[in-house]
């Protein structure tokens, strides 16, 4: 009798479900609606006014400019470069620091703050002085600058992700089962960091699609730069372009979040919203589907 099929108790059932605020259960109180309406007015009225001001024709006009397409594609390309480089650089580094050099973690946190603390103009001038010749004047240089800018956000996402599960034990378990470091990182750590990496991606993409200072100082026609340049030519068209930028960025981020969350939710992973990662594992533990 090797198989002892047992009817054991599920510890999960003993954990009391997180209690929700009573107000949410019994309907939303009036004051919440008031706040919601004020917030909605704050965001929607300018949008509506802008739409009215631009008019429908401005939108078709925007897309007909050839420089619109190239500026937009440049921004997308920069977003891709920055995201890929950020993840490739930050994921192994953060994991390594977390597992092997926990004392360095605080230092790393301090270092990753630096890009926020220094004004972009300082970074740019410094960078242009030291950048190697083959990078100067190529979009890759700007991509690298964005990696630096995205670092604080990426680090914080990954740091939160690593805290949400027992990396150390999982890595040791993986090692003891015969997996070396690269395999462990690829098959065990990264799949469980998906949501954190997704958050990092969302923030990086949002950052790149909205960044103006660096791009304009470096003389690149990215999408935000194009919008500003255009403003001088035609008011309505420039406003239409801004609105377009807003919607496209929003759609792109929603796409990333939806795709990422769906595959993550299937595995009981964390939920991702635009600005937060919440681990669902404790709430659902022990409840079979």
């Amino acid at each position, binding site marked *: 009798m*090797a*198989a002892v099929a*047992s009817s*054991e*108790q599920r510890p999960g059932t003993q954990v009391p479900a997180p209690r929700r605020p009573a107000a949410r259960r019994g309907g939303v109180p009036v004051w919440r609606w008031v706040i919601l309406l004020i917030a909605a007015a704050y965001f929607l009225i300018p949008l509506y006014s802008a739409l009215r001001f631009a008019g429908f024709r401005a939108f078709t006009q925007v897309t007909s400019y050839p420089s619109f397409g190239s500026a937009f594609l440049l921004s997308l390309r920069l977003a891709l470069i920055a995201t890929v480089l950020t993840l490739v650089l930050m994921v192994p580094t953060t994991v390594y620091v977390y597992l092997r050099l926990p004392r360095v973690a605080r230092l790393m946190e301090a270092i990753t703050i630096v890009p926020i603390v220094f004004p972009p103009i300082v970074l740019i001038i410094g960078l242009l002085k030291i950048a190697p010749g083959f990078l100067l004047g190529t979009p890759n240089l700007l991509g690298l600058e964005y990696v630096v800018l995205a670092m604080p956000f990426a680090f914080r996402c990954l740091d939160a992700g690593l805290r949400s599960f027992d990396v150390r034990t999982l890595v040791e*378990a993986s090692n*003891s*089962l015969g997996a070396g470091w690269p395999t462990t990182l690829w098959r065990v750590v990264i799949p469980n960091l998906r949501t954190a990496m997704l958050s990092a991606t969302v923030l990086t993409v949002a950052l790149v699609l909205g960044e103006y200072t660096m791009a304009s100082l470096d003389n690149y026609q990215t999408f935000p730069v194009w919008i500003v340049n255009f403003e001088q030519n035609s008011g309505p068209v420039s406003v239409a372009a801004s609105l377009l930028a807003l919607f496209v960025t929003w759609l792109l981020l929603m796409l990333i979040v939806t795709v990422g969350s769906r595959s993550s939710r299937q595995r009981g992973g964390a939920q991702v919203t635009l600005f937060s990662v919440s681990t669902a594992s404790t709430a*659902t533990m022990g409840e079979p589907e």
Partner: protein
Amino acid sequence: MTTNTAADAVASLGRAGSAGAPVGLHGLSRSFGAVRALDGLSLDIAPGEFVALLGPSGCGKTTALRIVAGLQTADSGTVTVDGKDVAPVPAARRDMGMVFQSYSLFPNMTALENVGFGLRMRKLNSASRTRKAAELLDMVGLSPQARQYPHQLSGGQQQRVALARALAIEPRVLLLDEPLSALDAKVRLQLREQIRTLQQRLGTTTLFVTHDQEEALSMADRVGVMRAGRLEQVAAPSELYSRPATVFVAEFVGTMNRIPGDYDGQDEVSVLGSVVPLAGDRPVGLTGAVDVLIRPEGLQVDAASGGNGIVTDLTFLGSLTRVTVLLSGDVQVKVDKPSPAAASLAPGTSVQVQVAGTEPVLVAVPGGSGQPRLS
């Protein structure tokens, strides 16, 4: 029919040759800063043997296990498997299955994929990997949960999957790091039996670390009691209980009374009006007033007016009742007595406590607690 297939699975695994290897720990030492976690630990484990390391937290037992696993290094000393020093072998190549205290299943994989992970690392193809992983899940009675993710399993189920995962690679050594301590009592008991049964069938050399003496005594072939980085005694559970080598072991394992006595400096001690032989070697430099260590079943209690003690409490244990008696001199002792006979001893009854039989006893420095025996 589940039982049959499970038995077959075990049989086929046995044939596949996961027979245990002899493991040796020789003079292992390890310090963390000023703390000496291991202080020259030596232990030989026979092929297929189940050895438990038992000790209070911080005694170095987990450090010893992690050094065997290759997850930590020793400052000095060696670990041998099959007679070969494994120091140069990284953890990933040691062929040791490990079950951790905290839940260690990969959250991104189903139970089946978790069990198959080690096989995948051993380059087994997908079909035979799935077949073997399914066999092992069957063995721990979790076939119906094969497609579930860890968050859908209970704690006990997760540890059973972890056990199957550790056994799937047909390890030469199985290492269990307090695998039951996160579970509730009932599940713990079931899993305890299951681990023991599987281990005996597969014959995998097993090192088990725990702070729970009941666990160690009920599962292991031999138990090593650890204290401050050293082994105090390694012995079969029954021997550990009945013939503890040191005062620490005597008091750590089971219930032990300390009763004031008088030691003649030779081979006998007088206690509670009896003269009993001394166990083991003569303690050096200890004569006169001592504490004599006697288990509850080594004492006898009877109602007697003007006796040497008063009953203060009764604990019903089934066929036996544990009688707590306050002796003159403010010494409290516990005595086991058959329940029917103990029924008449209400609290407050005057009783006479005596030594039952002439089992050899250990003596300790009076008043000390957990002091090593002076020998």
